[in-house]
């Protein structure tokens, strides 16, 4: 089951080009020229070169739920609120996108000082900046850029030989979008919700065996810590995955962008690369791996990927492919450098840095716990512990009547649910159908980033809404 199609909202699409805005409207009026050959409705009757039928068919299949219709509706509602329209809520809370700064999280001072100095070096003479603010790895424009590039490289073949890429369900919709655009075959493997979204090798085996009937599976993508699920894989599990990839001759793509966000007790981040190397030469010299990381400062678009054991000729092809992008944004590159080489003990910025970092992480850990607690008190909502990353992906029960109404409207039931929540409470979440889920189950993804007091309000509103919704449709 791939990420299911979400119908576009007609007439409300904020990007719609108004057909009346022809380029000539101003000049024709100015010049008073007679209009040539107008059809009855006053529009030129000439088919466009680029239409829905002539455009690239694979692009038509691309969807990206995180910035999809529900977000567009949220933006519209914000606009209406600003214009003074009355709503059952005072503000729209965007808990759909994992953007820390948008939610008020303060940037790390040291990072920003260095970047400011890099921008305008004349500031180096300014005494307000501390002294310490005064090199197989590819930097990328956000981790997404690296992921898409590797996929571009891998995807080839025709028919039953077409490349298949294994991806978890649920998954981050960048993968499904990229696979759709590249015309690759998406091969789903289901994470086990009842066991805290853990990965089961038997399920991987089932998926790859079935896939071999209709495509050529070549890669296995795993997101650890997970998005949207937040689970942190155990070391044992990572070893199992590596053995599986070796046995089935799959290229491993390890999306580890949330590696710095691990909260749950007993959980620890283990990088695929480290585990691979500790498994000895039988694996460390053969398994082909790409690991991805990113700066958590989203607007800078900084990221990197590390490639292990890639054939030299293929590496040359990869370099060639990357050069078409010219280069990733330099501030993002600089920031990536700072993320991996933060201030060390003894350096002037260290105290402040460690204080800010600790504060941020412990706040997130608290919010993770709070979210799990509150949502689990609601009948019909079931929330797994948020072990890492910055999202919660609770399962919701939607009454039959609501499912029916949604289907009649041509909407996914969880999209229907989320839309109602947005209209009634101003809370913007992303429906589980955007990420993939087991048939007949429904979820939503919310970030745990809003400041604690706002988060409490949000969670209570969600609780209230769910109870009302269930009553309304029972």
């Amino acid at each position, binding site marked *: 089951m791939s990420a299911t199609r979400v119908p576009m909202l007609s007439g409300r699409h904020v990007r719609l080009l108004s057909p009346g805005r022809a380029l000539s409207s101003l000049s024709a009026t100015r010049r008073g020229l007679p209009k040539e050959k107008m059809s009855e409705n006053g529009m030129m009757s000439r088919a466009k070169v680029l239409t829905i039928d002539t455009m690239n068919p694979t692009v038509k299949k691309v969807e990206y739920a995180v910035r999809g219709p529900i977000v567009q509706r949220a933006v519209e509602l914000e606009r209406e609120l600003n214009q003074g329209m009355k709503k059952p809520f005072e503000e729209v809370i965007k808990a759909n996108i994992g953007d820390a700064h*948008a939610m008020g999280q303060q940037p790390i001072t040291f990072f920003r*000082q260095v970047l400011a100095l890099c921008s305008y070096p004349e500031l180096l003479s300014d005494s307000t900046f501390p002294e310490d603010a005064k090199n197989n790895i590819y930097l990328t424009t956000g981790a997404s850029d690296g992921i898409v590039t590797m996929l571009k490289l891998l995807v080839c073949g025709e028919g039953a030989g077409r490349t298949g890429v294994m991806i978890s369900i649920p998954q981050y919709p960048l993968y499904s979008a990229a696979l759709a655009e590249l*015309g690759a075959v998406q091969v789903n493997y289901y994470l086990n919700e009842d066991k805290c979204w853990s990965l089961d090798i038997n399920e991987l085996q089932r998926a790859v065996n079935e896939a071999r009937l209709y495509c050529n599976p070549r890669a296995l993508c795993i997101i650890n810590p997970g998005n949207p699920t937040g689970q942190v894989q155990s070391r044992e599990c990572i070893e199992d995955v590596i053995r599986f990839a070796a046995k089935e001759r799959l290229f491993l793509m390890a999306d580890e962008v949330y590696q710095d966000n691990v909260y749950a007790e007993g959980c620890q981040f283990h990088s695929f690369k480290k585990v691979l190397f500790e498994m000895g030469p039988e694996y460390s010299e053969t398994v082909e791996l790409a690991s991805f990381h990113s700066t958590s400062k989203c607007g800078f678009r900084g990221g990197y990927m590390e490639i292990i054991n890639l054939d030299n000729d293929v590496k040359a092809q990869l370099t060639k492919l990357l050069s078409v992008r010219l280069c990733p944004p330099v*501030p993002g590159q600089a920031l990536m450098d700072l993320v991996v080489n933060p201030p060390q003990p003894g350096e002037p910025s260290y105290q402040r840095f460690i204080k800010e970092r600790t504060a941020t992480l412990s706040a997130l850990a608290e919010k993770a716990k709070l979210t799990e607690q509150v949502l689990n008190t609601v009948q019909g909502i079931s929330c797994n512990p948020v072990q890492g990353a910055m999202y919660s992906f609770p399962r919701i029960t939607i009454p039959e009547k609501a499912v029916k109404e949604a289907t009649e409207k041509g909407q996914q039931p969880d999209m229907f649910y989320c839309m109602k929540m947005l209209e009634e409470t101003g809370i913007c979440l992303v429906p589980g159908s955007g990420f993939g889920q087991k048939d007949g189950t429904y979820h939503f993804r919310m970030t745990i980033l809003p400041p604690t007091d706002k988060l409490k309000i949000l969670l209570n509103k969600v609780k209230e809404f769910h109870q009302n919704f269930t009553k309304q449709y029972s």
Partner: protein
Amino acid sequence: MSFLQKISSNVKNIKQLEYSALAERTNQIREELRQGVRKPYGDVIDVSFGDPHRAGLKPLSFVRQVLAACLYPQLMNSDKLPADVRHRAQRLLESCVGESVGSYTATAGIPEIVQRLSEFITRRDGGVPSYPENIYISPGSQWALTNILKILVNTDGPSKTGVLISAPCHSITTLSILGLGAVPIPYYLNEDEGWTLQVEELQRALESAKKFCNPVALYIINPGNPAGPRHVQSTSSMQEVIRFVSEKRLFLLADEVYQGCVNGDNSKFVSYKKVLAEMGPPLSDTVELASFHSASKGFTGECGLRGGYVELVNLDPVVMKHIHTLFTTGSCAPVLGQIALDLMTNPPKPQEPSYPLYHQEVQHMRTTLAENGKKACEVLNSLPGFSCQPVEGGMFAFPRVFLPPRAIQRAKETGMQPDTFYCMRLLEEAGVLSMPGCDFGQKEGTYHIRLCIVIHKDIMENLLRHLANFHQKFMMDFC
């Protein structure tokens, strides 16, 4: 044996640039110099990229001050920065979510910035309206171009999609087209007439291409890279192109990133959109156009910040929705790049405190560019074996070098293209890094090199001196 031996054929088809061997050798030479190896030069003069900062020119103070204040807002409390800089930074931060340049923005860019871009375009085009919903800011203009190409290229059809591109044309676009599984169809600019475009040549290219692909678009760079019609296209030439694409039902891709670099006394940049609007209906209402601009070129020169945009004109509304979805998968353009674009299109005004310094810096660059262009042409045209068309716009000189048969023979023996061979020698013996014409496409049997001229005046003089000395020796060796 690696299991990733088989890879996408589209990627394999992206040709390896000849330039990469030169770049590699440059790194080695720099290392050798660091280790104290004696050479006839102290450092490599790199004029291979259209990158003013790489070539040693300073960024605009105003731009960098605003960026610094946006990055580290505490700076706004001091009076170290001029009042208008602080005011701009304040306004920009207010338009960022959470007042931080670290947050994601709307897909097409920060709405206030997109709005101001549309106002800039309207001003630039003498009132021809521009609508924010048709504008997408992207990490560099090439990113947006790739997205538009993705929509145009039909990967499922019985024949490959073709895109008409100028020869010469800058290499990244050609590689993007190949990478998408489409076919670049070169139309040759007329070097002897100052690189002008002839419609008959467009016709010829189109007709011959129809035999092996389905041409859907025409890509043109104005001002040119490495060379365009007189480097800056005349209005009548642009009108011919517009009529051509309309008649042949082609999508027009107008790459106008060098619009800020026009130095000729007789040249002026006019946008394709303006020319199209002034041609009136039916053309102005029907020709489908994508125009590209960027903060990487012109006097702003902020290549590394990755800020560019595309404006779409007369597109089908349904297709626009899909374009939007495609842009969403890239999240958004880097915020600092968006800000650089904003500052480039809304520079300080005469009454504002930053204006004098800004004006001085821009004028300096303008004169440098004009003088360098003239000097380069003079010197190159004085050398037997070189011929250089006047440079009235863009950032490059693209002189033709007439290589002796013995040099061509030697090149073939070493497995290099003749102009790559020349460039490699130029690098080794004179320490000048340029780009060979074969990477851009050129008429069979002709050879060129591309040199960036947006560099310090002194470096330009140095370069021309080294080049002249080298060239005379090279010609003597091989004649």
